[in-house]
C-alpha cells in the first residue's frame, strides 16, 4: 500500500517533470517581478511619508486594509480590468506586499538616532542627502526584512493567482482541488504545495545571502 503510493507519485513526477519545472520557474518569476516592483513602490512611498505624521499613518493604514482583502476577491475584482493571467496576479502581489515594505521602510528611517541626523545636518548635508546617504543605508537591514516578509507573503498568494489563470504552481493545486476523487488529484495538490514550500525555503535562503552581502559592514552585529 505504502510502496504503491510512492511508486505512483514517482511515476507522476517523471511524467510531468518538464511541466512542473516550468510552473516552478513561472512561480519564481512572478514573485520576483512583483516583489521588485513592490520594493520600488513601497520604499518610494516610505521615503515620501516617513516624516509626515498624517500621510504616514494614512499610507500604512491603507496598506493594512489592502492586506485584509481576501485574495480571491481581489483577483476577481481585478480581472474585469486587467484580464486573466500575469496582469492581475502581479498587481495583486504588488498590492499585498506594500504593508511590510512601507512599514519597515518607515520604521527603519525613523530608527536612525536623532544625534546622527543632527551631526549630518551640522556638517551641512541637505535633508535629501542625509536621507539617501545616511538614513537609507542605516535603515537598509530593516527594509530588507520587510521585503523578505513580503516575498514569503507573495509566494503563498501567487499560488492563488492560478484561479485567474495566473502563472505558477497554483495551477497544480487548483487542478488537484477541481478533480477530487480522481486518480491524480492528491498528487497534483500535494506536489504543487510542496513545490511552493520549496520556493519559499529557497527564497529565504537567498535573503539570508542578500542580507549578508548588502548590509554595510559597520552595521553588522
Amino acid at each position, binding site marked *: 500500500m505504502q510502496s504503491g503510493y510512492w511508486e505512483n507519485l514517482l511515476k507522476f513526477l517523471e511524467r510531468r517533470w518538464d511541466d512542473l519545472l516550468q510552473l516552478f520557474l513561472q512561480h519564481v518569476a512572478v514573485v520576483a517581478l512583483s516583489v521588485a516592483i513592490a520594493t520600488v513602490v513601497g520604499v518610494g512611498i516610505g521615503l515620501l511619508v516617513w516624516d509626515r505624521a498624517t500621510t504616514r499613518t494614512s499610507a500604512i493604514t491603507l496598506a493594512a486594509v489592502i492586506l485584509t482583502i481576501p485574495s480571491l476577491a481581489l483577483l476577481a475584482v481585478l480581472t474585469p480590468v486587467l484580464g486573466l493571467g500575469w496582469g492581475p496576479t502581479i498587481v495583486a502581489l504588488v498590492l499585498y506586499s506594500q504593508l511590510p515594505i512601507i512599514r519597515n521602510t518607515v520604521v527603519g528611517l525613523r530608527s536612525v*538616532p536623532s*544625534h*546622527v*541626523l*543632527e*551631526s*549630518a*545636518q*551640522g*556638517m*551641512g*548635508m*541637505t535633508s535629501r*542627502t542625509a536621507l539617501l546617504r*545616511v538614513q537609507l*543605508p*542605516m535603515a537598509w537591514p530593516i527594509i530588507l526584512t520587510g521585503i523578505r516578509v513580503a516575498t514569503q507573503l507573495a509566494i503563498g498568494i501567487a499560488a492563488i493567482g492560478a484561479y485567474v489563470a495566473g502563472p505558477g504552481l497554483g495551477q497544480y493545486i487548483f487542478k488537484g482541488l477541481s478533480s477530487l476523487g480522481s486518480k491524480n488529484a492528491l498528487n497534483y495538490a500535494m506536489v504543487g504545495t510542496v513545490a511552493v514550500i520549496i520556493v519559499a525555503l529557497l527564497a529565504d535562503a537567498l535573503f539570508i545571502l542578500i542580507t549578508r552581502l548588502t548590509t*554595510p*559592514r*559597520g*552595521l553588522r552585529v
Partner: protein
Amino acid sequence: MSEQTATLFPSTATTPGGVSIELEGVTKNYEGQAVPAVENFTMRIEPGELVMFVGPSGCGKTTTMKMINRIIEPTSGSIRIDGREVLGLDPNELRRHIGYVIQQIGLFPHMTIAENIGTVPRLLGWSKERVNARVEELLDTVQLEPAQFADRYPRQLSGGQQQRVGVARALAADPPVMLMDEPFGATDPITRERLQQEFLRLQAEIGKTIIFVTHDFEEAVRLGDRIAVLSERSQIEQFDTPARILAAPANDYVKSFIGSGAALKRLALMPLADTTLAPLAGAPGKRPTVPRTGTLRDALDLLVVTGADAVDVVDEAGAPLGSLSHADVSANLAGIGMPAGTGMPAGAGMPAGTGMPAGASIGETSPGAAG
C-alpha cells in the same frame, strides 16, 4: 568649489586659524512659551579665542550655540562671523564651514572612520586624492594611527577614540570656527582628562575660534581662554578669563557656580614657571621638590602632604630654582593679574624683601648651569 571654501569668510583666505564671531541682540522665542529661551544675547568673540559657555541645564547655552550654525533659527538679532551676517547665507553652505561636535558624537555607523572624516570635504567637492590626504593628516593630528584606524567602523572604537574621530571630522575642511556641545561629557573621567589635554594641545596648534558648551565649571576653567557664565534665558552673568572670574566673581550666582575652593582652583591655573619664587633658604636637597612644569596647586599640595615649611621648585634637570613656603603661595595668589613670567621684582605682590626674580635664583644656586 574650493575657491568658495576660501571666501565664505574673507579673512580665512589670508590668515589661517580663527575668525571673529559677533552676536548682537540674539533672541529665540519658541511658540507657545511665554519666556524666551535666549533673550537679547550680545557677545563678541575674538579670532582664535576658546570661549566656554557654562550654565545649568536648560539655561539656553546650547540653544545660543546652535543658532550660530542655524541648527536653530534665531527669532531676532544678528550673528556675524568674520563680519558676514550668517542669517543671509545658505544654511548648508554655512555649516560646511563651521566645525560641529556634539556629545553623542553622531558618527555614521555604516561608514568607515575615513569616510566619516571625509564627509564635509566630499560635500565641498574635493578630489578623492585630496580627501584621502586630508583624512590621513587628521588621523595623525588626533593621534589615531591611519593605517590602523582608517578602515575601521565606529562601533569598533572606544568612546574616547570615537570622540577623537568626531573632532577630526569637524576639523576636516579646516573651518575657522568650531562649535562644541559638551563634547567630552559622556566619557569617563580619565578619558575626559586625556581628551581635554589633547584638545588644548591641538588648539594651541590650530588656533580656531571655538565656542565650547559645558555644565562643568572645572572643565571651563581648565580649557577656556574666557568663560561666559550664563543663567536663565542665556543671560551673561560674567564674561571674563578663568583667573579673573575665580578672583572676582561678579555676583552670588557666579560664586555659587564656582563652588567651594575658588583659591585652590586659581592656584591650579598658575604655572610654577610663571610664579615668583623665594630664594633658596639654606642648602637644597633637604626640602621636597616640585617640578617647574607643575602649578602652584601642586606646590601647595606638596606642602600640605609633607608638612614641610617650604618646597623647592626644580627645573627639568632637577636643579633647584627657588623655594615656596605657604606664605609665598598666598603672596602669589594675591598678586594675580600681574603680567606673568616677566621676571618682575617680587615686591609688587609680596612683602618686601621676601621675594626675588625667579631667574636670579638660577645663577645663584646652579652656577654650572648658568656658565
